[in-house]
């Protein structure tokens, strides 16, 4: 393969902007991985993506992960349990359709940006649930309830 393949700087910039916009405008923790996964069998793709999602650590409950493997021609959206309430699987499926449609035309950047937009619209506008001070009361409330 000749040099210069892969995402162009312009495409990378657009994806970064889309990820940033999701975070700032919708309070949605989106991350996008573009690259082939090292797998013996493509049947393990979903499991590998869930592992990648778990690698987000504490964020994974509220995180949405796009995995785009251009060489393997597979795309996967993984949502954490909290994120799934805002981004139901039905919405994920539509976003995947938007991506596969664009990827078939060779437009990697455009597909990812479009899917990010769809997910952001579905999630609606909400502040980032990033505040530990906000998360703490919810936790203590559960603890109190379980004590009764």
């Amino acid at each position, binding site marked *: *393969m000749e040099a210069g393949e*892969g995402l162009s*700087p312009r495409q990378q910039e657009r994806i970064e902007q889309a990820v940033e916009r999701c975070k700032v405008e919708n309070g949605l923790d989106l*991350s*996008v991985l573009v*690259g082939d996964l090292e797998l013996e069998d493509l049947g393990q793709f979903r499991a590998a993506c869930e592992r990648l999602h778990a690698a*987000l650590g504490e964020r994974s409950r509220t995180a949405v992960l796009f995995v785009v493997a251009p*060489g393997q021609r597979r795309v996967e*959206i993984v949502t954490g349990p909290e994120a799934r309430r805002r981004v139901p699987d039905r919405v994920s499926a539509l976003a995947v359709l938007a991506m596969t449609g664009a*990827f078939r035309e060779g437009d990697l950047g455009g597909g990812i940006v479009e899917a990010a937009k769809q997910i952001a619209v579905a999630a609606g506008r909400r502040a980032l649930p990033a505040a530990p001070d906000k998360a703490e009361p919810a936790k203590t409330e559960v603890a109190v309830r379980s004590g009764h």
Partner: protein
Amino acid sequence: MLAAAAALTACGGDQRVSSNQLGYDTGVAPGTEGLSLLEGLALYVLAPGAILLLVAALVWLPGVLRGTSYRPGRAWSAPPLWFGGPPDPTAAVEAATPGSMARGGASGSW
């Protein structure tokens, strides 16, 4: 475009403006000397060529600027890029334990 304009003026009509407002004097055959080989080439080859090239560039440039280098079915050798990922992806993936978290999402292929 400059080349096209230059070619057109090189073959051009400025020489005969002096005749009158309607065109040529009665009885004068226009352009009896004809086009030289160079003028002919410029008018019929260079000028259309320049216009063709301009149109081709207008069609071709946006795609190049957008960088649609990916073609489905070709291998992908670029190293993985993780936008908004963990600070140290390799270590994070090594240490990751998917556990029993109920994850959602969707899959697709193209």
